[in-house]
């Protein structure tokens, strides 16, 4: 047991920190969505990350990645969060599409797609969820029918982050409607510029359009653009979902730590009933409780990491991280606004805390327990796969 960095880890941490300090765009705000005004900046930023050798950190070197160890990826995500560097534009490409292509793609596919994912030249989105297939992803209905040397795709996808600027999409479509629901799905790589693809921005309750609806009408996809075999898409999709979280948990815990620090600073300068909010016993109890939860995230992540490094098999702690983070982050957002009182109602202005960023964060946090596995689905997963309880149904 030793929570300190080894000499090599400390050196790597310093490299990351120095590079980020020297190169991150000035005045960039972490965590805000991909709004039109930010796309140019984010493209430039990703190119810079790639040139610096920081894109595709965990990818094998032969595919243009850095081949970094798990612990190095963790250190990078912690430092990235600490530096409040802007989000990585091609996050779906680097985090999900790329690793899946590396695992299941042909040499030709790897050659065609991987470089452009890392450089950000081609942006990817993920066409999994549908209006009728959210938590129950296997119920998806978008169809792909073979016609000559193409698949003809018809259907609708929803909650698609980045679709409005994406060049490519990893798309799950049903290729055998008669097979049991998980057996008739294929994993396609779809050119978003194909005729018949329509993207409509979906405004969230934050007011932003961070994600989209996608409509596919007789979209022709070359047969070569399938990953793996026909009807084997579900298995391949599991690879993608396995990569969805990656070392994200470490970044989220670090971000939450930073935000809690901001909440404490805010409570010191905000008056409540004539005295600084930080002196209010209930505010203190809630700040303390959040500290305990955020540290639990960090420490559970570390335990999971050690289990993986020692055994190669993730332990039960990992699946708990997302659940804890979503629920705590919502409470953190609520407390941030509550400390501010009426100033917590302003989406901007000098009267608002941090020019309204906290209002944004609070609103955005409502999605935390829905995206990437709802809290209810995560509890099912923990109950069934970790505790070995019988399946519900």
């Amino acid at each position, binding site marked *: *047991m*030793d*929570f*300190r*960095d*080894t000499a090599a*880890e400390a050196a790597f941490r310093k490299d990351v920190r120095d590079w980020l300090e020297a190169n991150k765009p000035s005045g960039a705000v972490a965590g805000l969505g991909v709004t039109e005004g930010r796309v140019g900046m984010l493209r430039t930023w990703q190119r810079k990350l790639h040139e610096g050798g920081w894109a595709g950190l965990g990818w094998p070197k032969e595919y243009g990645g850095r081949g970094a160890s798990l*612990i190095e990826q*963790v250190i990078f995500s912690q430092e990235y969060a600490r530096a409040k560097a802007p989000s990585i534009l091609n996050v779906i490409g680097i985090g999900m599409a790329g690793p899946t292509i590396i695992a299941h793609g042909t040499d030709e596919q790897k050659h065609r797609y991987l470089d452009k994912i890392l450089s950000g030249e081609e942006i990817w989105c993920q066409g999994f969820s549908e209006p009728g297939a959210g938590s129950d992803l296997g119920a998806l209905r978008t169809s792909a029918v073979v016609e000559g040397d193409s698949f003809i795709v018809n259907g609708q996808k929803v909650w698609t982050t980045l679709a409005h600027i994406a060049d490519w999409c990893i798309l799950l479509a049903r290729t055998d409607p008669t097979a049991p629901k998980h057996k008739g799905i294929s994993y396609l790589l779809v050119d978003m510029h194909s005729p018949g693809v329509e993207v409509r921005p979906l405004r969230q309750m934050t007011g932003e359009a961070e994600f989209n609806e996608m409509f596919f009408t007789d979209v022709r996809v070359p047969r070569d653009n399938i990953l793996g075999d026909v009807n084997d898409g579900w298995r391949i999709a599991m690879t993608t979902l396995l990569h969805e979280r990656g070392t994200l948990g470490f970044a989220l815990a670090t971000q939450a730590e930073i935000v*809690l620090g901001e909440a*404490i600073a805010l*409570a*010191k300068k905000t008056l409540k009933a004539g005295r600084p909010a*930080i002196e209010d*016993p209930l505010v*203190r*109890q809630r*700040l*303390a*409780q959040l*500290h*305990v*939860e955020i*540290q*639990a995230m960090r*420490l*559970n992540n*570390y*335990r999971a*990491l*050690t*289990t993986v490094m*020692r055994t190669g098999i993730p332990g*039960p*702690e990992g699946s*708990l991280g997302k*659940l*804890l983070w979503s629920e705590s982050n919502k409470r953190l957002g609520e407390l941030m606004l509550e400390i501010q009182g009426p100033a917590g109602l302003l989406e901007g202005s000098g009267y608002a805390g941090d020019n309204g960023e906290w209002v944004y964060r609070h609103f955005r946090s409502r999605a935390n327990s829905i995206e990437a596995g709802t809290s*209810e689905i*995560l*509890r*099912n997963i*923990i*109950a*069934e796969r*970790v*505790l*070995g*309880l*019988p*399946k*519900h*149904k």
Partner: protein
Amino acid sequence: MDFGFTEEQELLRKSAREVLAERSTPAVARAVMESETGFDESLWKTIAELGWCGVAIPEAEGGLGLGWVEQAVLVEETGRAVLPAPYLSTVGLALPVVLLAEPGEMRSRLLQGIASGEMRVALALTEEDGEWFAPLKAAATKSVNGYTIEGRKVFVADAHVAHELLVVARLDDDFAVFAVPAADTAITPLPTLDRTRRLSEVRLDGVTVGSERLIASGKSLGWRPADRTALVIAAEQTGVAQRVLEMSVQYAKEREQFGKPIGSFQAISHKLADMLLLTESARSHVYYAAWAIDEGTPDASLAAASARVAGIEAGRFATAEAIQVHGGIGFTYEHDLHLFYRRAKWDELYYGDATVWRERVAELIAAT
């Protein structure tokens, strides 16, 4: 970065679990509960012979010379087995104070006595107001041969089976800790909900002790003993929570209603998932805090206070929901769950409750 146990630590856990599975069964706990003194001499002898009291005591003082990580491993296991012995009161409440006392003959005597198991020591801190970290009424005055102590201590854990009491009393403008032979005081056990860990009232009516029995001053101790005590109780809570979680998962797999195991209902399975989340979180906190204390890191106090809060949450939630998952049978005296519930409640309310420790966390995070 490494958050795993060494082979020796794993071995310690394994052997403790084996011994406890045989010697610390619920039947043994029930027998101790019903007994007059709430104490089982032969069980204590086993613990002593295994060296469990001296895990965190230096080898030079007769201990095993290990650290708080190993101590936490053992206490997690004794919690899992609701060990009915004055173990936590000795190693969790008294030992931290003795370890941090002024080096000297008295400290050595106490350490060696604890390490061998021949001496059980109880911490006499709280008074009738039940406040943990507050001004005291008990007072010591310098006398010809040492000190005379006057006062009444209440809620003293396992005092009735202790050989020595660590009495905390005012002295001049500070407070001091005196090792007082239990026989020199008047001890009255009080009816306690966990009858394997009874609380007593202790009267000191002008008890005089030699000056060598003043083992520490408040200023020199500060919060350091409290860090260790908080850690040890949190480790016990983690063990208790883990055990009732396992019992509940087992029950939810076997018990059928409406033709299905109740564990297939989300109203049940989601409770169990939350129990796991709190238990694993408490465990992570406990071992980080133990490591931080062993290494003397700057955040050791914060880590210990956080562990205490996480431990309380896990113990309270897990034992309460375990009863709910078990339904009517879980509410019977015959079922063992209430043994764990009692222990968790004891751990929750003894040595500062969640509000007290969250305030401690707040104080530390707001200061930075």
